[in-house]
């Protein structure tokens, strides 16, 4: 939708890559090297894959981490702070997985509690207040499903986070780094531009969860993964993401530096594009971007209700003024 304001991105002929940022905007461009959905799931979950901290360290010039939701505690599964990229200050918020078992336990495997989302919201507001662009990094199997998370309002925290992002009066760029697990990912996923690393996945439900429901067997996860169309090229085709950030050959886990460099190039170019759009236009374009997602069938085209004067205007004569 931002394209309407800035003119459509034009992919370089034949390879579908943007020259300035190397972004993939056409799934056909990577058809030859495209793996199966299940391979994408494995790559996205690879513990050696660069996680939020690695990407922040490599893609930004400076980063100062900020802690806490000011309400309950500091959730280690969500990190955030102020960073500098190419002379521009930004707020970065991301879900943080671990690379080892100990680290994963400390980070709760990247599954935020409500306080993680509330910390995110606090940082979104900070970005808005000081007119800093917001960059979010998604990498989570999902929001933590434990009883304490329920007690503290996991659903409410996610809903508020989505709400905050839909109306945040500053440019927002979303990058799906690895796993985009359902509502817990979408809580960081509403932006003017949504990008994903080439081998990232984004899904409404885990393939295992879908398999258990649809085929009554966890073993069918591979089948469920391809049915869910959760891999990068699928997301591009469905319009869920705007562009893919290419990964080094073999996947992001093979070269953290090159991956971070690709993310940096993408962010720099997107932030530059967005900086030219007035905030009000940005907000309506963001609304339209998500408004347009969905496929329905209507036999008799849109039977809108008859136009009437609003009731309060019709009834104004009865109101004492």
């Amino acid at each position, binding site marked *: 939708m931002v394209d309407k304001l800035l003119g459509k991105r034009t992919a370089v002929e034949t390879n579908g890559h943007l020259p300035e940022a190397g972004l993939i905007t056409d799934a056909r461009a990577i058809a030859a090297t495209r793996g199966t959905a299940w391979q994408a799931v494995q790559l996205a979950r690879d513990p050696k894959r660069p996680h939020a901290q690695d990407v922040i360290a490599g893609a930004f010039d400076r980063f100062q981490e900020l802690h806490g939701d000011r309400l309950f505690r500091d959730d280690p599964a969500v990190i955030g702070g102020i960073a500098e990229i190419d002379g521009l200050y930004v707020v970065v918020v991301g879900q943080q997985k671990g690379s080892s078992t100990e680290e994963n336990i400390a980070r709760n495997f990247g599954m935020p509690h409500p306080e993680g989302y509330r910390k995110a919201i606090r940082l979104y507001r900070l970005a808005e207040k000081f007119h800093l662009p917001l960059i979010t990094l998604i990498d989570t199997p999902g929001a933590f*499903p434990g009883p304490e998370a329920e007690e503290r309002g996991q659903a*409410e925290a996610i*809903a508020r986070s989505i709400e905050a992002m839909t109306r945040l009066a500053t440019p927002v760029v979303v990058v799906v780094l690895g796993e985009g697990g359902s509502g817990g990912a979408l809580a960081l996923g509403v932006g003017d531009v949504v990008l994903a690393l080439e081998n990232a996945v984004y899904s409404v439900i885990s393939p295992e969860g879908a398999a258990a429901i649809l085929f009554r067997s966890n073993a069918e996860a591979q089948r469920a993964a391809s049915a869910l169309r959760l891999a990068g090229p699928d997301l591009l085709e469905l319009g869920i993401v705007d562009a893919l950030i290419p990964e080094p050959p073999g996947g992001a886990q093979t070269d953290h530096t090159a991956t971070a460099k690709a993310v940096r190039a993408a962010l720099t170019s997107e932030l530059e594009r967005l900086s030219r759009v007035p905030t009000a236009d940005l907000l309506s374009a963001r*609304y339209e971007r*998500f*408004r347009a997602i969905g*496929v329905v069938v209507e036999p008799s085209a849109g039977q809108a209700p008859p136009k009437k004067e609003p009731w309060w205007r019709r009834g104004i004569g009865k109101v004492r003024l």
Partner: protein
Amino acid sequence: MRLRMPFARGRKEFPSHLWTQCPGCGEMLFNKQLVRNLNVCTSCEHHFRFGGRERIELLVDRGSFEEHDSEMTSADPLVFADSKPYPTRIEAARAKSGEQDAVITGFALIGEVPTAIASMDFDFIGGSMGSVVGEKITRVAERALAERRPLVIVSASGGARMQEGTIALMQMAKIVAALGRLADAGLPFVSVLTDPTTGGVLASYASLGDLIVAEPGALIGFSGARVTDQTIGEKLPTGFQRSEFVLEHGFIDQIVPRAQLRDRLAFFLTAFRPVAHDMRWSL
């Protein structure tokens, strides 16, 4: 089926099309009487599920409901490869529920206040939210904004519809964005949670009401209790994720028995009538 005397001892003596056993108190309830009592147990007040269309009939002023987008149906955007094709599931759900999809939307009067209403139907693939639910609720919210009406959404849903993948997930953002515009315009949104309201529906619009009320004993939670059970590996306390639990933890305003819901909504909507705001601004 052969009918028998309903006053005998064994459970077999109660043919299921005439009698229902209450899971709350174990009482055998005569179906006709149960329906007459709005699907609420006459002895323990256990709230059985209630259809989306019956719900509208219950809540709005008689004859005032004007349905929108009644013919909108689901496409199969992912060409979802399942044990049963998605269009077949849709067809079966249509037959089972008599509805075109999992939500009914439109304009109505509630306590004489012109209101926009959306009512979900759990019988349609577990009230799951796909493109149709997303589009219909977004449209009714946008029309509420255009006509400056308050919005009431009655939820009954297991969450996003898996067969529409990330497209279903994005409906959460789409609806929430539309609600944001209502909020900016100072228009009230009342969210009514019924059994069950879970997953992506609770993690989006259902949790964002200016007021949130729930029916007694409704299952309300982000993760299904089974998921939580498996992840944690311990038994959950009784009453976990029920309306009373959610009220105690501060995430809803009230628990309202079904029979009182209509009057309660009328009270709130009247209190919030946008007239008051418009007068204030015009002074």
